[in-house]
């Protein structure tokens, strides 16, 4: 049977659709309520939880998450509403009449404590043996309510086998409190729909299709469920032990590359407010831990821009000059492995639209086990490559069988931001206090274009900077103020921009073997789009299927995670729109300070093309090492 592609949360999990009045002056737009006898005024349709938060009244929550639709199932947020016999869940109760709310009455306090005791009675495990120790919402709530013993007992034996089949996500349902955040993340936020509650009553658990291991269902490995799990029931598949072993092995040359997003978020793991970039400090920490070389994934991002941008020009040339209508346009970005797997499963007929360029992580891996050992005179068999990524899916990506073009496994381990923070702590280092240091050569320079890969719209902006400059011969700063292409920035789910090419310049040397001139692009309007979160990707893909405006785009950036990489499944917990916005600000702020803002200006990159990838972007060497193929997975596991 065909899979129903129309997965969304059932009505029971959706918030009441009340349009909050735009103009607070409108009649009935504001409602006067009382919270703990304090009179306040809130817009119609505000939930009790929102109203309380706006008025500095704390309400405990577990199933509620700002990014997700409403569940109203954990019941720890119950409050008293005058005139109602039962307590009401603050998270799901929309205010439509002038009610009086009590948030700490004896009935409320007793109920919350009892509910917490019930949850603890079924929550297997001890806090000190848990990946979420000190960052667990259930643990925090137990502390808030002064739990010092188990009123209703405590489960002594695990009920479920831990599912660590997936390279990305480990599921330990013994710690699950059935808040269904993961279900809502998967079904509603990402519209993938791998997880659902199975059975009923006390037999309820969150499971997969036919209870298959997570590796054998159509999970895209985005890890968004991990970021929203309140407990340790979900975590990433952690390679720290193997990495420590490699570091401790003197015969191994252990290299680490760091993606743009972890540096903008890792401070959160050390108690800093979101929005502090710790690039230099992290480099120092990595060397102190014992990595033999510290490289910047942004360098590989520059490489990706060159390859992907050239590929786009080649595709357009095929269509516009050679008249080849079989060429797949729009070209889709391929940096996000969660997005790639989403497309392979849900829209397999579209995989020829994916850029054949590998993601920066994998391009770097291929270079690090070919070019790098040659110039360093190291046996590539002894090189261990680690990639610090904001991502759970990168763990899957580096294990894809096709990612061995160097003759070895191009990237040995994908490490999340959280796991790296853990390693730094294990090494006895307090990251924010460290002195700064630079990345290692021969890849020591990276452009700002590579850095902004971390934010949604960043890959598009980076590619546009290079493509437009190469094609028009005009400095990008003369087209966009400060080289910032604002139209593709921001957090709106889907963004669209049109950029007319009014003049063309001579073909630059680097790609002069591919194109005689760019006259054929004169007068063409470049139409581009950006989508983040697979739910938004789905909208764009459906539009393309139906021949809508996105089908006329030439290039579309897709990211599996809301906010792009900075909101990835490997980033510090918690996450919400505000935290993601601050991480983006940190990235864009750092970008303005860099020497190079465009990938093709990166001198170390030009050296790589001159000395190693000698037949240029999309040449035979780069096709062998830096490009890949995809699999039509459909509803099946291939």
């Amino acid at each position, binding site marked *: 049977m065909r899979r129903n592609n129309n997965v969304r949360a*059932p*009505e029971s999990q959706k918030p009441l659709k009340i349009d909050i009045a735009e103009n607070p002056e409108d009649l009935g737009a504001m409602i006067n309520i009382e919270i703990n006898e304090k009179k306040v005024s809130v817009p119609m349709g505000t939930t009790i939880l929102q109203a309380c938060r706006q008025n500095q009244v704390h309400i405990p929550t577990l199933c509620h998450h700002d990014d997700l639709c409403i569940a109203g199932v954990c019941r720890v947020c119950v409050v008293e509403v005058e005139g109602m016999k*039962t307590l009401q869940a603050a998270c799901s109760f929309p205010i439509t009449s002038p009610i009086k709310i009590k948030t700490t009455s004896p009935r409320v306090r007793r109920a919350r404590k009892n509910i917490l005791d019930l949850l603890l009675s079924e929550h297997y495990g001890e806090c000190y043996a848990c990946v979420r120790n000190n960052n667990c919402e259930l643990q925090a709530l137990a502390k808030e309510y002064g739990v010092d013993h188990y009123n*209703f007992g405590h489960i002594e034996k695990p009920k479920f086998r831990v599912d660590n089949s997936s390279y990305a996500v480990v599921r330990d349902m013994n710690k699950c409190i*059935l808040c269904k955040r993961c279900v809502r993340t998967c079904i509603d936020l990402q519209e993938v729909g791998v997880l659902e*509650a199975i059975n009923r009553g*006390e037999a309820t658990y969150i499971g997969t299709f036919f209870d298959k291991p997570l590796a054998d269902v159509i999970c895209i490995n985005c890890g968004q469920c991990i970021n929203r799990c309140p407990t340790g029931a979900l975590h990433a598949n952690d390679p720290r032990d193997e990495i420590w072993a490699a570091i401790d092995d003197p015969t191994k040359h252990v290299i680490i590359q760091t993606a743009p997003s972890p540096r903008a978020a890792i401070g959160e793991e050390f108690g800093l407010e979101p929005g502090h970039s710790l690039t230099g400090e992290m480099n120092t920490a990595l060397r102190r831990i014992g990595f033999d070389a510290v490289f910047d994934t942004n360098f590989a991002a520059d490489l990706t821009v060159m390859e992907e941008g050239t590929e786009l020009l080649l595709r357009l040339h095929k269509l516009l000059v050679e008249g080849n209508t079989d060429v797949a346009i729009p070209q889709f970005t391929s940096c996000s492995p969660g997005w790639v797997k989403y497309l392979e499963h849900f829209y397999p007929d579209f995989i020829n639209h994916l850029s054949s360029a590998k993601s920066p992580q994998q391009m770097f891996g291929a270079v690090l086990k070919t070019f790098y050992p040659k110039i360093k005179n190291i046996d590539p068999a002894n090189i261990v490559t680690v990639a610090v990524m904001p991502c759970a899916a990168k763990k899957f990506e580096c294990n894809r069988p096709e990612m061995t073009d160097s003759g070895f496994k191009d990237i040995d381990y994908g490490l999340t931001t959280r796991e790296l923070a853990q390693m730094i702590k294990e090494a006895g280092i307090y990251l924010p206090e460290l002195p700064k240091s630079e990345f290692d050569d021969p890849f020591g320079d990276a452009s700002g274009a590579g850095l902004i890969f971390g934010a949604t719209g960043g890959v598009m902006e980076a590619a546009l900077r290079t493509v437009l400059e190469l094609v028009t011969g005009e400095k990008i700063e003369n087209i966009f103020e400060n080289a910032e292409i604002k139209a593709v920035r921001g957090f709106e789910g889907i963004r669209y921009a049109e950029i007319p090419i009014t003049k063309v310049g001579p073909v630059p040397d680097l790609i002069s073997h591919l194109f005689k001139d760019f006259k054929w692009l004169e007068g063409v309007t470049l139409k581009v789009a950006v989508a983040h979160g697979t739910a938004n990707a789905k909208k764009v893909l459906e539009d393309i299927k139906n021949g809508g405006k996105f089908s006329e785009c030439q290039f579309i950036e897709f990211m599996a995670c809301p906010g792009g990489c900075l909101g990835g499944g490997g980033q510090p917990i918690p996450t919400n729109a505000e935290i993601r916005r601050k991480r983006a600000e940190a990235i864009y702020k750092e970008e303005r300070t860099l020497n190079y803002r465009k990938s093709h200006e990166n001198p170390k990159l030009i050296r790589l093309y001159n000395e190693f990838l000698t037949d240029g972007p999309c040449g035979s060497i780069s096709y062998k090492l830096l490009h890949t193929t995809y699999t039509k997975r459909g509803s099946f596991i291939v």
Partner: protein
Amino acid sequence: MESGKTKRSGTVIFSAYERGAAIKKALSLSRNDILFELKNSGLKGRGGAGFPTATKWMLTAAAVSDKKYLICNADEGEPGTFKDRVLLIEYPELVFDAMVVGGYTIGADEGIVYLRGEYEYLIDSLNDYLEEMRKDNLLGENILGKNGFNFDIKIFLGEGAYVCGEETALIESLEGQRGEARNRPPYPVNTGYLGKPTCVNNVETLATISHIIVKGSEWYKQFGSDKSKGTKLFSISGDCERPGVYELEWGTKISEVLELVGAKDAKAVQVGGASGICLNSSQFDRTLAYEDIPTGGSIIIFNKSRNMLKVLKNFMEFFVEESCGQCTPCRIGNVKLLEGIKMIEENKFTFKQINKLKELAETMKIASKCGLGQSSPNPFLSILENFKDEIFNHSGGGSYA
């Protein structure tokens, strides 16, 4: 199983009725007149929650939408309740006629009967009956010549989950989702089946409406007590000589019921099914009425040979099994109450533990998401209270084997 058409006697529901009469009468009235009659009758929902029916109809009628639904809740799943089955087998005209009247009143053109999974054997006869109605233009387009009034009824078979008797879980189930109660508000009268305004009425509520429409609210109000008007069907079972479905006026005493059905040595009466309360003999002069003991109509009688702790255990096992599992108090709370019963059974408990469980039961009543968890502690609390001598002093009768 009931066989054929036995003639029952009763003042309202089991009184004489001619098929289609309510539809004919209703179509001659304005919607406001119908709503007035209903309001004047004081009819409350007969499923057990007792929400004023007229208010429900008015709210659905007032909701603005291009499409509305009227759903008959025939998911009769409360242990000890079987009155709706009798109505559907013997008096389908009362139920379906009122659905048509409801459609006319609230502006719905589609009626759905959500039939309990275990009642699958009724489907063919009900569909035959609906077909007859269509032939006589009691269903279909321009019903009985009323231009523009179209209404039809289809039957949907449930899968046997108790929680689907809760109206929002019923709607979820109809939509093909897990049977789990929704957050309320919004209420189904505004956002119901497929997001459209939906009125969900119990089988018996509908059957009563047909009579009220034909004979008028003043006639109906002459029956019953001061504050609870009319009559109620009671499904009476357990230790008695004449179990069955009885139509009684509101205000009837428990002792009168016991007399009627020949319950000689009753020790306990569970009113309202598993989720109801259990009375001991000192409470048999209490009355069945909204002002005293409101009920959906299940009465289970236990005589002196019954062990009340086992009775309670049976009820709690039912709730552990039937909790949908979405909210914490109901999912885990019922398990803890059952564990407490087992502790008493094995004589391994402290009163501190029992009191903690009673406090938990109170929390479940106010903090659970839907009526299931809000009412499942009722037997726990009432049996432990009303039969504490028997349960805690092993001399009270019955054994713990």
